[in-house]
């Protein structure tokens, strides 16, 4: 291996790491706040990317109908609870909360001239759709079982993953697609061409993660989420609603998921079921961070990205095996380092 090749592989690894880092962040956030191991993060990614592809090809993104459907189910769930309390006036209010955003998006998607709009505006609509998608998934699937064990929540995730995977085929078809780069072209750095798109990927990931860091550190909402992550009951006693915290975590996961999906679709071909394996790699990174620490998860993402890149050079047939094997020493090390602990706590 020459120095040039190592540079190339390094650049490629860091680009991948930026995307895995975003995924790992979302997984850690969702797990810390709601104890949900959010396997469908990969589907949010593909749904975001493929919705954007559909928009650019002049088809309405059918995801918006799924949102309306989920909104109706959520309203129904809320409605049942409200009817039990007998305060019927609140039905309308619940309807507005659950269905308002999906219907607004439906209106937007079918009234705006999507294919001719600027790329950035199309991306904004996709991000908005996924920002609504995440919390609705939480409301419909996870909130009714919020107090269940981690294992139950994991099984819910598996079920949701399978359901979304099938829906993905229905909404987007079986074929893969690719998105154009935000900016074409490349420049020379140390004798190696660096594409502007990989700068976009790495730069936007770092900026997004930094913004989220500031949000968690300094804003009231961020602190509320952190409080819930540290101690759910304690936070509830301080007046932080766990349902609100869950929705907020899924909102962030939705936006981050869609963004990572769009980024990855600019570098590779994405089809309706591509999200799972990519999501799993984000999961490996999150596990390295113990599903708790953001900086360690980011380091884990870097490790996963670089391992994948170099493994694809030396032993391409075993690339994914090598990446997923990483998880075994990490789990061993973590379980030895942390000793006994009760999974139901935190």
């Amino acid at each position: 291996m020459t120095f040039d090749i190592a540079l190339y592989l390094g650049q490629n690894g860091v680009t991948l790491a930026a995307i895995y880092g975003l995924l790992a962040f979302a997984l850690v956030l969702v797990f810390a706040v709601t104890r949900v191991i959010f396997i469908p993060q990969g589907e949010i990614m593909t749904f975001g990317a493929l919705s954007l592809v559909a928009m650019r090809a002049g088809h309405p993104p059918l995801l918006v109908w799924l949102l309306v459907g989920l909104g109706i189910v959520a309203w129904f769930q809320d409605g049942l609870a409200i009817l039990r309390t007998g305060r019927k006036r609140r039905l309308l209010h619940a309807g507005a909360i659950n269905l308002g955003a999906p219907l607004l998006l439906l209106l937007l998607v079918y009234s705006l001239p999507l294919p001719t709009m600027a790329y950035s505006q199309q991306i904004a609509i996709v991000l908005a759709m996924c920002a609504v998608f995440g919390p609705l998934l939480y409301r419909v699937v996870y909130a009714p079982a919020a107090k269940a064990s981690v294992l139950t929540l994991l099984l819910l995730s598996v079920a949701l993953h399978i359901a979304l995977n099938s829906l993905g085929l229905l909404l987007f078809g079986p074929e893969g697609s690719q998105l154009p780069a935000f900016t074409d072209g490349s420049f020379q750095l140390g004798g190696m061409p660096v594409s502007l798109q990989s700068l976009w990927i790495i730069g936007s990931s770092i900026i997004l993660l930094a913004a989220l860091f500031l949000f968690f550190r300094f804003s009231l909402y961020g602190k509320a989420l952190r409080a819930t992550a540290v101690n759910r009951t304690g936070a509830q006693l301080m007046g932080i609603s766990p349902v609100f915290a869950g929705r907020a975590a899924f909102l962030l996961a939705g936006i981050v998921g869609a963004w990572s999906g769009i980024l990855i679709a600019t570098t590779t071909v994405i089809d309706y079921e591509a999200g799972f394996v990519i999501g799993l790699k984000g999961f490996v990174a999150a596990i390295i961070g113990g599903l708790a620490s953001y900086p360690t998860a980011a380091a884990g993402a870097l490790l996963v990205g670089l391992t994948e890149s170099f493994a694809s050079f030396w032993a391409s047939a075993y690339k994914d095996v090598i990446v997923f094997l990483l998880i075994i020493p990490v789990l061993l090390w973590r379980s030895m380092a942390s000793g006994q602990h009760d999974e139901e706590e935190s």
Partner: protein
Amino acid sequence: MRLIHHAFVATFLAFAGIGGAMADITVGAVLSLTGPAASLGIPEQKTLQLLPKEIAGQKIRYVVLDDRSDPTEAVKDAKQLIESDKVSAIIGASITPSALAMLDVVGTAKVPTITLASGYNVAFPVSGNREWVFMPVQTTALMARATVQYMAAQGVRKVAFIGFDNALGEDWWKNFSAEARASKIDIVADERFAPNATAVTGQVLHIIASQPDAVLIAASGTPAVLPEKTLRQIGFKGRIYQTHGVANPDFLRVCGDACDGTLLSLSPGIVAAQLPEGSEIKQSAMRFAQTYEKAYGPNSLNQFSTAAWDAGLFLEYAIPKALKMASPDDLVGFRKALQQALAGIRNLPGSQGVYNMSATNHNGLDERAVAIAEIQKGGWKLLKYPN
């Protein structure tokens, strides 16, 4: 998904006009309409919709089941078709693992089966269960030989290989490496990538470092775009060869201009309009191309549809012959008659080649089933036929 598949079945029943005469002939199909192989099953299913609803005065009823790209499902589907739908013949499965899994069921029940999968062991050797299996699909060996011969003619001496890290990639590797050795072409790199890989930079760097004259990408569908684009990005200047696995409009849509100049061996049916007037399959290929494009729009032809179409041709050829020997009411006799008629196919021009069945060969295709084409301006340009 069950719902969708029922919807498909319902559509087919509607198409076939259920409730006709009692002695209708029922043809079952096991296709991968969902799951990883959906991009094969869906065009196949679209083709089945175009097959004749009446052959030799007999109404043909099609029942399509989805195997969800899962061999276990394929077995269940085949049993259901045989036992409750009383099919005379089965078309499918779409993929080799499913087709292999079904062998036992169709062989035991003695139901003639026209497979759409390309795996060599689905139809070879012709004995036992496989006596009932017919395969209107080019074998990988046939395609690999044509590709290697064209490479040799183009003066390629060193070639690099990058294929899927699954059965398809392995099958190509086996056939391609054997053919290349026979033609004295050096294989300087053997790389693999996952269909859902996020990057193939490492593999491509390895390939470029080994300085090949040409690269063969053995993959199928849109995932085959990634190595091609990465090769060009990093600055590979030689020729890139793809396989017939990419011969569908979606590959062209995703790859765009980046794939101009790519060479591949494909089914001649896809370039029907460009085939020389005198060739034996011109007429039969044009019939396929015109029917399919009329139903699904221009430039919609693809590799999977040609095979499914020829499965229909097999039935059109065999059913009239079988009817002379047995009545469809006598299911066992009719299935046997159909099997004999299929095994008796001689010089049948299809959409993608001329079929000649024999006691040892239920595939029956030869080099007349391969065309060499180049991708030019987002379309297939025929370079050489017959190969």
